[in-house]
Each structure stands twice: as structure tokens, then as C-alpha cells.
């Protein structure tokens, strides 16, 4: 059965251990800008929201990719990036509605969550159980949807605040 990464933003304290762990595992250095997960904090309201690739069912990054470097893995159902096939046109970074695919000029890579090949480091380093690696059952899906609704609410609040 495929697995998904669920986010519980209501539990997030904004510590960014996930970002640091992600960067260190993938790059061997602490460089949060190329972490595959990012935590955005609004200090005035005390809210933090982790953002990462949603591995969308109908993924705009896959649809837009001219070389199929961005593709769906048939076994895991995750969206994956192939470094060799990629021509660095960066269309995927524009297509992603969440901004979760990013190009890093220093490493010349598209930076996007790869689920750590099934053992996500961010989940291991989160001290507050904000991130959950769970079987992709219908029960989990419905919970995931409930949390995404919270996301929406959080964003609405923040957007209003900014305006």
C-alpha cells in the first residue's frame, strides 16, 4: 500500500527541525533554503505551517514537464524527479500551485520532496508529531482532507491579516 505524509499544522511550534533534518540528509549541510520542507511562521499570531510537496493526483509539475523528468512512480504513487532527464527548464517550479518545487542554482537541482525513499527524515526529527507518515487508506485520506481544510482556514486568516 502506498503511504502519504500528513501535516497537522495545529501542533506546529515553528522549530524547523524538519527543515534542518531534510537539508542535512540530502545535502550533508544545514542549508534550510534548499530543504524540501519549509515552515512558515506568523509570529504575531503564533502560527506556523509546514509546506511540502503534496504529491498531487493530477500533478501540474508532471503535466508540464517536457522530458518526463518529473513523473509519477507507479508503485508508490509519489511524484518523483529524475535528475538525468531534467533539462532545467524550471517549468515545474512555475506550475506548482503551492511553490513546493524549487530550483537551486548552487546545486543545479530541482528541490522537491522525495519522501526519503520511504523513510522520511522530517518525520523522525519532528518533536511535536506535526508530521505523520501513514498508509494511504481512505480513513487517512479523509483526515488529510480535514487538515487541508485547516490549512485553508489558516491561510484565509493570514491573508486577511496581511491585507
Amino acid at each position, binding site marked *: 500500500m502506498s503511504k502519504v505524509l500528513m501535516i497537522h499544522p495545529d501542533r506546529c511550534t515553528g*522549530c524547523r527541525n524538519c527543515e534542518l*533534518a531534510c537539508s*542535512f540528509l540530502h545535502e550533508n*549541510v544545514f542549508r534550510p533554503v534548499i530543504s524540501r520542507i519549509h515552515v512558515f511562521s506568523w*509570529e*504575531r*499570531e*503564533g502560527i506556523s505551517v509546514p509546506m511540502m510537496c503534496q504529491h498531487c493526483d493530477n500533478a501540474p509539475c508532471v503535466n508540464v514537464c517536457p522530458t518526463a523528468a518529473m513523473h509519477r512512480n507507479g508503485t508508490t504513487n509519489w511524484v518523483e524527479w529524475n535528475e538525468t532527464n531534467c533539462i532545467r527548464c524550471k517549468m515545474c517550479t512555475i506550475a506548482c500551485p503551492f511553490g513546493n518545487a524549487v530550483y537551486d542554482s548552487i546545486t543545479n537541482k530541482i528541490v522537491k520532496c522525495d519522501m526519503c525513499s520511504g523513510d522520511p527524515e522530517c518525520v523522525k526529527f519532528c*518533536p511535536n508529531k506535526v508530521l505523520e507518515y501513514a498508509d494511504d487508506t481512505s480513513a487517512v485520506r479523509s483526515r488529510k482532507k480535514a487538515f487541508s481544510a485547516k490549512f485553508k482556514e489558516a491561510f484565509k486568516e493570514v491573508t486577511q491579516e496581511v491585507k
Partner: protein
Amino acid sequence: MYGWTGTILRINLTDSSIRKEATEPKLAQQYIGARGLGTKIMWNEVDPKVDPLSPENKLIFAPGPLSGTFAPSASHYNVVTKGPLTGTIAASSSGGVFGPELKYAGYDAVIIEGKAEKPVYIWIKDDQVEIRDASQIWGKTTQETTESLRAATDDDAKIACIGPAGEKLVLIASIMNEMNRAAGRSGVGAVMGSKNLKAIAVLGSGAVRVADPVAFKAAAVKARQKIMAHPVGGQGLKAYGTDILVNILNGVGALPTRNYRESIFANADAVGGESLTARLLIRPRACNACVISCGRATEVTAAKYQGIGEGPEYEAAWAFGPDCGIDNLEAGVKANFICNDLGLDSISVGATIACAMDMYEDGILTLKDTGGVALNFGNVDNMVEMVRQTGLREGFGDKLSMGSYRLAESYGHPEYSITVKKQETPAYDPRGVQGIGLNYATSNRGGCHVRGYTIAVEVLGNPVKLDQYTTEGKAQTVIAHQNLTAALDSSGECLFATFGIGAEELAELVSTATGVLYSTDDFMKAGERIWNLERLFNLKAGIGGSEDTLPTRMLKDPIKSGPSKGHVNELDKMLPEYYQQRGWNAKGIPTKEKIMELSLNLSDRDINEIQSKEKVKEVPIKR
């Protein structure tokens, strides 16, 4: 370099010059970073006799080698300068993300020199550094400043800034970062204000590298597990915040009440962490890489004290609560929000108001002095109003803005000020907890608990429990805590990591991060070196053994009631032993042998100048 970035940024605001210099590996090794490295730079470059608010003073923002890594709770940077409140070296530590961000931008320290002609802020984006006009944001609160500067620079920029208090040279002004994190003590905000520097905005896209990634990760994971398994580090602080201490200190009869007139407070629970959690907490908050989450996002909906923000932590809850004879939690939270917004040290502000209340109760201050504001103990609304007036130097707040020592002295009654070296002591009564009194008396930045937090052993039993009332062995306990904390502060760690790990784990983290092998002893030795250099700085500034004392109230007036009834602080039983074990002479001056042993590399002229001070100084303890 590993751990360290290898670059120090030097900005002179007088001539607008910006320079990048190499971090000297030898100094980094000896003084680790942050507090230690900053103090060494101060020692090398600034005359300790300098007026703290003059352009000749320098202001150093320095993270440590662990800042920016995932060493648990390694979020800190230190602001190092000569403090205007105390006249001593000041090293004020703050968490959040600002310190790590300086590392990602590529810097081990930012040294600010001189004074800008008009208000400016500094924008650091990796290696691009600009001094920009700040006239539009001068006068704004820390929240407004943070939001304005993010709009002007980058939405993700991390901002350290002063509020109106720092601009107006309030001697108890703080520097705030990410709105709610404070480099709070010794008046560092006033130094920033004196330089016409409103803020530093920083955004970094670079990396912090460690020397041995595999060993570093193993050390960090082990340290995390220890902290998370600890009852205080892993559970208590996340559930209730540091405010959990209100009921604990009240229970052992050492919760200073009404400006230290008493040491238990009848309705303490009303302002404790349990009440805060039940009534006003939104959720716990954490600094970078933290596994503890002691921060409190809180909201008050009651119209009178309405607001949303962070805190209070224990010290602020005490300062605006029991110390002022107040049991109104919402008012304390509001007072703390005002401190964050105006950029004030909540400990010193609350304690200064408590001192004024004490003088008012005894008729030394009258309504004529206070601008018609009644300052009896327990006067909730006027306490909150005085916080605001202090930050803006309005009305009687102008007097309060000098801190309690100068306030009480100006009315001819310095004994009402509960301060050491002119800085307000925090929320642990040293009559009921002996060792913390010795730590207050000898602290290099004046009255302060986080130079040597012996409360850990004397009250909380971490890692072992010592009798709170005995003086025996406390000199050694205080020295060990002071040395460890000096090294820890210099590494970029948060003091709360010691609820789980100690010198051994910290030495391992710093060693694997930097590639410089620190044994546990080396790490502690670095802490001792830093402590002694701070002491030497203060001695050259003219502050020595005769200032290693406590307020008369702590030494002479026994606690009136509660578990600690009848106790005073017996400093005279501990201080001579402290000097001796420190390798200092009877006047509290480091001996030549100790200076050599610690490789402090002082010139003979410096040593002679410092040694000659003992001839003019009186006996160490005032009685």
C-alpha cells in the same frame, strides 16, 4: 572552517564603512563564539572605561558554532557590549531564528561601531550589506518595525530591532527579534539606540557545515533524546512554559513578593503556568532547532487587556505579578506584551515598578512625584500604565526608565532598590536559596539568574538535589554553573538544553561540528576563560570585589513567613571560598597565575593595572 562560517562583518556607522574580516581560528577555538568571542572582541577593541552610550562603545551580534545546526535548541546569538545599566560587560542571549540566519548569511559576528548621523537600519542579504535610512520607522514598535522591514526587504527576513524604549535610551531597553524573542538584559537596546541603529534585517541562503556529519548527527540525536526524556526539558516546559516555576518557588518559600518584602505570595497560582495554560495559551512555540517549546503564544480577550502575542515566561509573570503584589494574570500578560512591543526588559521594568511601589507605600514617593498615579502594591491598572510610561519615558516613567537603583538613589533611598551592580535581581529569593545569592553577587552582568542557574540543583534537583539553605559547597556549585553556562552561551545553545544534557554532550557537539577536539574539561576550561575575561573587563571598568554583594534586605532582613522563615543570605560564608576556588585573591582579582593558566594572553601592563586595583579597593563585602 566548520561550525564557524569564518567571516566577521564589521560595520562602522560613523563613516558608513562595511568590511568583512576572517574569523581568527585561534580565538574561535579559545572563546568558542557568541558570548565568548564577543567578549574577546570587546576586550581587544574597546576601553572598558568607555561611556556605554557613546560612539566609542561597540555592539556585537554573535551566534555560536552550533547556531543554525540541529543540535537541539541551538538557536541563540548573544548581543555583547558594555551595558549602560550596569557599566559592566553585557552579554544578552536571545533565541528565535535571527542567530541561525546570520550564520546562513555567512557570519560568525556582526560588529557595529560608531554612531549614524540619522536613524538607519542594516540590510544583510548574504554577502550584500547595506546601511539604509530608517527615518520612516523610527518611533515604531517592534512589531510594526518587523512588518515594515519585511515589506521593504524580504518577506522571510529575520529582524532584530529596538522599539521606542531603545531609541529613547531607556536604560532597561531590550533588543527584540522575530517580535517576541528578547536580548533583554543590561540595557543593550539603549546602546543600539545610541548608535541611531533601529534594526538589522538578515536573510541567508548559505550553509552551515559541520566537520564530521556522521558523528555530529549521532551526537545531536543522542542529545535530543536526553532532553526529550527529561521531566523538565521534555515535558514540564512544553506543557506549562517556564511559568511553571511560580508554584514551585512559592512552595519552597523563595518567590520574592512585594519587592522582596516577603517570599511567599498568597494567590501565586493565579499567575502560574498552570493557570496560563488553562486560560490564555494558544499553543507552545519554539525557537530554531528546539525540542523543548517553552514559548507561549497567548491571547487575552478581556477588553481591558486585550492583545495577542507571546509570553509571559516565568520572570515576567513574577515581575508583573507577585513582585508588584498583583495576582491578575491578564494584566501581567498585557504588561509583557507592552514590553515586547516597546522593547523593554520585563524583569527590570517589573522590578523597578515594584521598587517604586515599595517607596510609595512608605511615603518616600508621593502622588506629586508620580504625576498623580497611585503606586500602592497591587494596583493593577497603574502597573500596566507605568510599563507604557517607562518605555516611552512619559511622566513618572522617565524616572523609572533609569532602573530601580538610580530611581531609589535619586530619592536618597538606594536600599529600596533590589539590584546587584545596578541590575534588578530576578524571581528567586536568595535568602531562601543560598547559592543563587552567591551567583547574583558575583555575576559579571549584575543581578541575573542565567549566569549560573543553581536553582536547577538547589530547587529542581537537576541533576541532583542540594539543600537550598546550606552554604556548604555552594561556592563550587556556583563556579561550575557559571563556567558551564559561559561555554554553553558561547556555543549558540539555549540554557534550557541543560535540562537533559551537560558539558560532556555539549563538548561532543561542538567538537564534531567544528572539528576542534574539545574534551569535557577543555569545554569547561573555555567557560572559565570567558568568565575570567569578563571579570577582567569589569575590573578595568572600575567594578570589582566591593560590588560583589547583595542588597541589604537580602543580607539583613530575615524572611518573615513561609517555609524559608528566618533565613537571610549568608554571602559572607560563601564569597571568600568562591574567590579562593576561582584562583582569585581576597579582593576578587584573578591572580597572575590564573591569568597565565587560562592563556588569557594579557600584557604585563594590563596585569599590573588590574592587580593595582586591590590597593584602592575596600573589603569585598559591605555589611
